[in-house]
């Protein structure tokens, strides 16, 4: 009887919480853009003009608009890579490194298995991309599970090692012979390229991201593992006493997170670049981290805010061209968002 009443009561609360979430993000966005406008104004620029330019460049052309979605893909994936371990109070700062290593192992597969038909090649690349990130995350996972090193530190430090491995590969063994001037691998065969929507650069990775968000939500809400992970996040001592194996779960969620970030790397190399380059990531791992914390790990929030983040990134590009403001100023904007969210528990949704 109680149960029925409970399920009846649940429906309106969900609707209400979605409305609240939307309102919350709206407030965050308006506030940050206002403050950033002030910053621009102090720097002697015309903020209204700057925003208008951005608006026309993004929303004025189909291509400009489509680029937003391209931007969203890696940051949504790396946000899930952070949000999943965060459910167990594990702080994965290593999305960037895991993304690099996913791209790296996918590159190895792309260069090694040439000749596979596309329908088989893409899943193989996905598998290796996932593995690359997962194995990279397994290092901090094992260190944490054995209670040796805090995962925040190890994941962060590994971010500095992963690009070196990429550098070594593209300067050394994998360096392309035909474009020897650039440190990059040869172009992948066509069968190893992710399909894109014609006329844009939106690629299959968008589906990965959507599926990852959906699975993440489903996994946490309905499955046995989701329940166990939430239990560990809620009270690790009680969970351990109930017989849930903490060590195994620590390793598992970090590897899953790493694998998802690895998928983002795989998508970047196979869809955007078509080869492995040093400049594989525009700080996607860190943006994903920010995105995850700003949204409190809510899948809908990640989707919505990823769009906003993509807009902000485009603002940076536009400002650099039209106003001569260095691209780096958008870091002010990103940090403002984090600041606003962290200082205000209501906005954080807690």
């Amino acid at each position: 009887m109680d149960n029925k009443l409970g399920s009846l009561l649940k429906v309106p609360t969900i609707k209400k919480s979605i409305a609240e979430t939307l309102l919350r993000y709206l407030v965050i966005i308006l506030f940050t853009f206002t403050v950033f406008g002030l910053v621009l104004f102090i720097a002697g620029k015309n903020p209204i003009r700057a925003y208008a330019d951005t608006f026309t460049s993004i929303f004025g052309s189909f291509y400009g608009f489509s680029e937003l979605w391209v931007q969203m893909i890696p940051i949504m994936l790396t946000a899930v890579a952070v949000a999943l371990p965060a459910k167990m109070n594990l702080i994965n700062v290593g999305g960037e490194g895991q993304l690099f290593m996913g791209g790296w192992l996918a590159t190895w597969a792309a260069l090694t298995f040439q000749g596979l038909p596309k329908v088989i090649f893409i899943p193989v690349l996905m598998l290796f991309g996932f593995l690359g990130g997962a194995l990279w995350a397994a290092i901090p996972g094992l260190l944490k599970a054995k209670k040796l090193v805090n995962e925040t530190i190890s994941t962060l430090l590994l971010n500095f090692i992963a690009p070196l491995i990429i550098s070594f590969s593209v300067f050394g063994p994998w360096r392309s012979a035909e474009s020897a001037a650039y440190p990059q691998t040869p172009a992948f065969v066509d069968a190893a390229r992710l399909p894109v929507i014609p006329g844009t650069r939106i690629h299959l990775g968008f589906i990965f991201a959507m599926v990852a968000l959906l699975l993440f939500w489903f996994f946490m809400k309905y499955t046995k593992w989701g329940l166990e992970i939430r239990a560990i996040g809620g009270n690790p001592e009680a969970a351990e006493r109930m017989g849930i194996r903490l060590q195994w779960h620590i390793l598992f969620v970090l590897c899953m997170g790493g694998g998802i970030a690895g998928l983002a790397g795989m998508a970047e190399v196979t869809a955007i670049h078509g080869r492995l380059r040093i400049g594989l990531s525009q700080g996607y791992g860190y943006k994903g981290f920010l995105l995850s914390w700003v949204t409190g790990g809510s899948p809908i929030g990640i989707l919505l805010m990823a769009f906003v983040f993509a807009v902000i990134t485009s603002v940076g590009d536009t400002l650099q061209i039209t106003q001569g403001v260095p691209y780096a100023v958008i870091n002010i904007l990103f940090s403002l968002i984090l600041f606003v969210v962290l200082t205000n528990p209501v906005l954080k949704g807690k």
Partner: protein
Amino acid sequence: MIGPSKSVNARKEDEPLFELRGITKAFPNVLANDHIDLNIWKGEIHALLGENGAGKSTLSKILYGFYQLDSGEIRFLNKTVHFHSPQDARKLHIGMVFQNFTLIPAMTVIENIALFLPDLGMFLVRKQIIKKINSLSQRFHLEVEPLAPVWQLSIGEQQKVEILKLLLANVKLLILDEPTRVLAPHEIAGLFKVMRGLKEEGYAVIFITHKIKEVLECADRITVMRHGRVTGQLMRSEASEDKIIEMMFGKTKIKQVERIIKAGTTSSKPLLELKKASTKAQGFSVGLKDIDLKIFHGEIVGVAGVSGNGQKELGDLILGLLKCEEGHKFLFGKNATHWPIGRVRREGAAFIPENPLSMAAVPNMTSQENMAVNNTRKYSRRHGFFIDLDTALTDLERSFENLGMTAPPFLCPIKTLSGGNIQRVIIARELAQSAELIVAFYPTKGLDVLSTIAIRQVLMRFRDSGYGIILISDDLEELFSMSDRLIVLYQGKIVGHFKPEETNMVDIGHLMTGARG
């Protein structure tokens, strides 16, 4: 400042220090305080007595400015005062010692005290503070080492620091919220001595408890509360246990638990056997040394000991959270030395922990989810892709029925339930599976009289139906009335093994404190 008062008898004619008039405070779904009237005199220990949820803590937190009252008034020396925060209360020299202490473990005693002083200057003049501490601690039997870090102190000593803190901050009315809950018997005696010393110097003390014996031992004035109302006020001289019980429980009859002594019914095969089991000491806890213990069907084995002498470790060893460094552990006839926790539980061991909210429950989850997560193997469907929460709920409801306990709401986060209800949910959960061995840690600690008796009856019923039970408790009366056999733990060793009929509390008490054996 309030001067000391020596004339205890003349007090009635004096005007009270504080007068509470018609204090009313409602929380969602519950009227915590319903028109409470209370007078507080200086130089008096005023006991607030009542079951859990009677409204004692709420009332005292209103007086401390922690909660705002809905209606009613607080009068200080005949003037109405308004408390918007504890700061306002502290200006009138009211101080409170909470159930959970507010000390910072890494800092020393004087640093903790200095943090609380209202007149702390720019610099920490240690010598001056030490001098103040020493003069007060000698006067009131509150001896602590001022330079010791707080984490090194026992709970009893930490409580002394809390009281010193208040005294140094010029508090004249001390509110002690269930101060005896965390103390060992000899520490309780020490606390009462402190309270009497304070009273003689003219301080007012509000002493919150649900233990009748303690009230009769040290209170001057007794106010009994039930369901948010005052059901009676007595001076110590007029009070008796029967009178108080009637005020606390109304017409409810309290049935004590009876243990029928069975002669030679212990079977030959033990449910649990520890053979020379030892554990490594971790941090500041003790390690177990050469524990030999057998638990058979249909018996309760009581474990006596001053808290911190290896009880927690014994439970954790059986559960598998602590590893056997040496020796062996057998459960249900099988070598379980290296079993993971999940296996121990699945094979039929149930654990009732000391502190259910922190040790056995996920606070933000509902009771239903807490039930399901305890046995995800049982409740997972489709290879784990779904969790059958409905069955978990049914099982939990059935277990409550079996145990004859009233069910609290199961679909709100478990942390919103009262302490007694959380304990009930955990007990119901643990006993829902078909267990044979029950490891019960202080199962009645902090519970009111009625819940305590209900839980003892449950354990006794399980014993009678053939379960083997380890009962770890610091309540010797509980151990003597419940146990078929008693062991005494001291510094990680079993220093005594008795039948309760063949020993007495004094002997056990000596063994517990290491005075003999």
